[in-house]
């Protein structure tokens, strides 16, 4: 049996286990296990501890499923022929400087924001996968703040912009060359409620 097959088998059984869990109509809430110490040295242990309800002994786990694939309507932001549909700004290694080639893109989005005062932009910073996830989250934030400053210079107020980071979470994994890492070092432009 090759490894791939083995994995499929393993995960098949895992998925089944998850499905079975999900199918239960009521959460499994166990009666607390009553423990009675019958050892000769039982007096040494506190009886209150032994009999107390182990609140953390939750063999039942209630699953929550989230589907955030939102509605995609018809608007200029989604029109592939409109520059507003372009959403990626790429960075050099270890840099948060916004390169000149992205000026038209940023200007177009700034114009849209100034014309649509209710529109809110979310700048999502990204990094390559080298380093720890939380630290990369902070590094990606630096890039989104840098892009935000470009918008500020074009007159867009902070109240219309939120700077966040995905860190390495959206990075294509297993990069072996610099081109691949480069594609991961970017800020993605998103609009609220789109």
């Amino acid at each position, binding site marked *: 049996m090759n490894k791939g097959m083995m994995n499929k088998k393993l995960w098949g059984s895992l998925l089944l286990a998850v499905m079975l869990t999900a199918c239960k109509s009521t959460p499994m809430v166990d009666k607390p296990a009553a*423990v009675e110490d*019958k050892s000769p040295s039982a007096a040494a242990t506190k009886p209150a501890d032994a009999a107390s309800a182990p609140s953390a002994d939750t063999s039942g786990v209630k699953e929550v499923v989230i589907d955030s694939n939102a509605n995609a309507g018809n608007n200029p932001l989604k029109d592939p022929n409109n520059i507003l549909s372009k959403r990626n700004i790429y960075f050099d290694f270890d840099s948060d400087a916004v390169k000149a080639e992205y000026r038209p893109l940023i200007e177009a989005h700034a114009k849209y924001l100034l014309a649509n005062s209710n529109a809110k932009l979310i700048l999502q910073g990204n990094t390559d996968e080298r380093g720890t996830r939380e630290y990369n*989250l902070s590094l990606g934030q630096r890039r989104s703040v840098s892009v935000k400053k470009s918008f500020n210079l074009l007159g867009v107020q902070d109240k219309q912009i939120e700077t966040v*980071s*995905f860190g390495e979470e959206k990075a294509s994994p297993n990069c072996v060359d610099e081109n691949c890492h480069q594609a991961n070092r970017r800020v993605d432009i998103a609009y609220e409620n789109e």
Partner: protein
Amino acid sequence: MNILRHAVAFMAFLVTSLLSTVSNAALEIEISGGSAQQVPIAIVPFAQTGSLAKISDIVGADLRRSGLFRVLETGGVASRPSDLSQVKYGEWAALQAQALVVGSVEPLPGNRLKVNFKLADVLKQSQLAGLEYNIAPNQLRMTAHKIADVIYQKLTGEAGIFASRIAYINKSKGRYALQVADADGENPQTVVSSSEPIISPAWSPDGSKIAYVSFEKKKPIIFVQSLMTGQRLTLANFKGNNSAPAWSPDGSKLAIVLTHAANSQLYTINADGTGLKQLTKSSAIDTEPTWSPDAKWVYFSSDRGGRPQIYKVSSMGGEAQRVTFEGGYNLSPRFSPDGKSLAMIRNDGGKFRVALQDMASGQVQVLSEGGQDESPSFAPNGRVLLYATRTGGRGALAAVSSDGRVKQRLSESGGDVREPAWGPLLN
């Protein structure tokens, strides 16, 4: 008893494995190594009827994987005692057993079970421990782990880790699932799943809740979710990033990281989402907080000195002090439960590895051998560190004993598994 304790005390190292070798387990680990001096223990199959999992098998598997015990084959012994009154000690002494476990599982009215076990010192012919549990049938596995913990504690003098659970993120088919499994990898259950990333799971100290960061709303937001009810509290959803939750030792507060409109900074917040307080103020990145076990300090990583290093700040706020000086790049601090050592991720010539710093001497030992190792997490007894590694282009879990002598890697873990967090012992 003392003989056994001494035997254990002389053992060169401790291996404690987390995950099962049973073929249908979600997570599997290959056991490599073990102690040269293992306590020979005989576990008599429990008197047990029906199709339930065999308690004695689960107990034996736990003890065997700890590396500290040699679980003896009992098939050649004619008698099958289920209580110490039935034990002929000579039979077990002949098997070279130093310790003997007997027990039974009996049905009770109301779909309950009575589980009984006794642990005996074969040489002294005396009882070392004995407990009776009144449980629901679905608590059978966890009860077996608790029995294994009692045996481990009696014979080694140290707390066990079998009756605990691990959390991790499993990415499969484009979805992210935060899952929890028993410490032997069995009984995996999904806590929350999403089409967007989930990172940084953190167990509440009582093991009833998990805090995590979800990107479901196009930005990192911190949630706290009850395992039993699935109820979710939005702990922190401020403008910008909300990430890196770390519970205070008493579970009343969390240290978190917020950005508002600038760089990552540390804050504390009550577990109900009230009482936000800024802990660090710098123009640098401050992130990855973790509490010292005495709750006096919050340790964190920061690039305020250029390259990222570990710093600490009073949990009441104040000036930060640098903690790590060795190595050009240190991240992800995590305290051992006794507070005597600090685990971290070190960039070792481009390789990200788990390192352990002794707090008294300042000495640092690199424990892992991967290139992208992350998320170190101590077992409740501090003897083992679970961490994320990459192998064959996928995320997998690995473990290393805190003395660095035994390294274990999950073999057939299937999907892409990362961000492990070892939960507390279940009482």
